[in-house]
């Protein structure tokens, strides 16, 4: 079955791009942060603490997001191939054989991604140390190192994450027929993350009240945990928004009806939600901080923390944005046959594109609204702790920009991919 896995990778590399990219980016980020620990060996205590803290905080956030990204892209990639898997089963592949194939593919992709990520992680690690030099947190005599910790963390996390995701996915696929996902487990996970987020939010508003900029630590985390929790609830949220916007979507005639009845693309909601939640939360948290800091004496590390916060969040944002485009492209390309069948039933290319655009609207609306909700886990308690006002004294323009970016990313990914997928006669596409 490993041979089949290899041939799959060579025959349809496109199906693995999303998984590869998220594993690659994740490995690079984790290696960069882990390399700080390599750098920290044998340096003065203050520098050591700075390096280890940064590695822990940054690496920790990346870890969660990466695990999430790899799992969701891999699940998507495997589920897209249930036809092939059903075919393999029908010619006599046993469940364990199919499982070995899926796990084998995932491991190969992860190994490749981690290997390619090494130079990028090395470079990012140097940038991080340079940044800590500039902010004075780390003595400028300390040279960046890239060693065992970076490599083992990068390879270890990527391989283990892919392995776990592959096992979970494989078990689901090789079960008889196509079993429903287990919503209970997902919902429990969502509840757990939301609880952690709430806990961080409460800590921020109570324990960190009056602690100034230090409140950012917990406030930032509150938003990230809440984003992940809500992202896990994407199917439910999408159903809710679809029900609410249904009457409007229906105004668009047949494309609207198809958009409402089509397969639910909750996998695409997750990155939009994570992106909106984390970006909005950070931007407003920084705004509150900036206004509160006016005329105050700040601790000398305030600037460093801000810079670092921005670096971490900037990287996560970029990462999630790439994930979003990836997920959408993968999900749309997979629907080649569905689009062809619609065209055979009499839909014009314009109508199919309109349907996909309307689905995009539902996805974006769900993601942006969910993200806004998640960002409040950061903004409200931080405002209360730092500026003694829960609702921030800030213009909604920044949120508008974040939402606009989400819309543009989603729209361009979906519409362009759909265009390409609709190329050529439907009679050929339906056989693909």
């Amino acid at each position, binding site marked *: 079955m490993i041979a089949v896995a290899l041939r799959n990778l060579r025959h349809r590399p496109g199906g693995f791009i999303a998984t590869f990219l998220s594993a690659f980016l994740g490995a690079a980020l984790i290696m960069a942060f882990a390399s700080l620990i390599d750098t920290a060996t044998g340096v003065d205590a203050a520098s050591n603490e700075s390096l280890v803290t940064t590695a822990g905080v940054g690496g920790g956030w990346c870890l969660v997001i990466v695990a999430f990204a790899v799992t969701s892209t891999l699940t998507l990639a495997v589920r897209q191939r249930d036809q092939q898997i059903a075919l393999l089963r029908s010619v006599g592949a046993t469940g364990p054989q199919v499982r070995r194939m899926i796990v084998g593919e995932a491991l190969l992709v992860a190994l490749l991604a981690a290997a390619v990520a090494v130079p990028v992680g090395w470079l990012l690690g140097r940038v991080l140390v340079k940044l800590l030099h500039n902010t004075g947190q780390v003595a400028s005599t300390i040279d960046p190192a890239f060693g065992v910790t970076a490599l083992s963390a990068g390879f270890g996390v990527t391989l283990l994450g892919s392995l776990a995701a592959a096992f979970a996915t494989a078990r689901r696929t090789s079960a008889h027929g196509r079993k429903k996902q287990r919503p209970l487990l997902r919902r429990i996970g969502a509840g757990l993350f939301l609880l952690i987020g709430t806990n961080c939010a409460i800590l921020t508003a109570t324990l960190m009240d009056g602690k100034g900029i230090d409140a950012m630590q917990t406030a930032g985390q509150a938003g990230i945990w809440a984003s992940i929790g809500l992202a896990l609830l994407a199917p439910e949220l999408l159903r809710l928004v679809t029900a609410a916007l249904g009457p409007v979507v229906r105004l668009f*005639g*047949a494309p609207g*009806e198809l958009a409402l*009845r*089509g*397969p639910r693309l909750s996998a695409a909601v997750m990155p939009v939600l994570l992106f909106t939640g984390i970006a909005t939360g950070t931007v407003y948290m920084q705004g509150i901080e900036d206004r509160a800091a006016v005329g105050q004496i700040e601790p000398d590390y305030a600037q460093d923390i801000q810079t670092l916060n921005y670096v971490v969040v900037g990287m996560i944002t970029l990462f999630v944005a790439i994930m979003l485009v990836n997920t959408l492209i993968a999900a749309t390309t997979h629907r080649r046959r*569905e689009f062809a*069948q*619609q*065209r*055979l*039933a*009499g*839909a*014009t*290319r*314009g*109508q199919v594109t309109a349907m996909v655009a309307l689905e995009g609207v539902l996805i974006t609306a769900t993601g942006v609204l969910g993200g806004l909700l998640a960002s409040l886990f950061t903004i409200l308690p931080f405002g209360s702790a730092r500026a003694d006002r829960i609702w921030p004294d800030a213009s909604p323009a920044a949120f508008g920009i974040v939402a606009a970016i989400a819309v543009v990313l989603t729209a361009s990914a979906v519409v362009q991919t759909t265009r390409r997928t609709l190329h050529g*006669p*439907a*009679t050929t596409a*339906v056989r693909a």
Partner: protein
Amino acid sequence: MTDIVSLESLYKTYDGGVTALDGVTATFPAGSFTAVMGPSGSGKSTLLQCAAGLDRPTGGRVFIDGAELTATSDTAMTKFRRTRVGFVFQDYNLLPALTVEQNVVLPLRLAGRRADRLRVREILDRLGLGDRLGELPERLSGGQRQRVAIARALVAEPAVIFADEPTGALDLRSAREVLTLLRSIVHEHGRTVVMVTHDPVAAAYADSVLFLADGRLAGSLRAPTADAVAERLAHLGDRVGVAA
């Protein structure tokens, strides 16, 4: 009798350089049931798809109900097709996310027309699917799915229905049902049906058979019987063999 479908020297060359149609001229009169037969790869599916406006011929013209299909854009072709042409595929091509009823009314809805629910029910009732309206295609048998596909092809009251091996995936009984249905559509409701098949017994349900070999017409047969068709097919194989 007026001609519903008229094909004028159709040529089709695929990207790879395969010539699937090599100058086919044919007409299908209103109220006729024609079977198209020929060896595998002789261009039957290509002929049907070009005639139905699902694909574009490389050369030649297609007229349906007096309108030239080949003279229009893809979008115009699609719009024309969904109200004037029905197509039944060997592998059904029902949308898996839509129920039986939703699948059947889809072409109408895409055309922006309200579906007459009573009529849709009546059609599905006649096809023995009256109690399966809300079912998803995956829960139907092959024969039932093909009947849904036929209902979908019928609902817009098209000028002509094309069927590409509609019984290819069905057992004998379901196949007989589908063929009887197609014949009654022609003889009781005056529609025009063009059907590709490999099965001489199926072809015998039609009023006439058109033979195709190597992308060219290779004769026809009126009032076919299964034996006569089988005989001609065997002969056709010989001729193709000699020519090759």
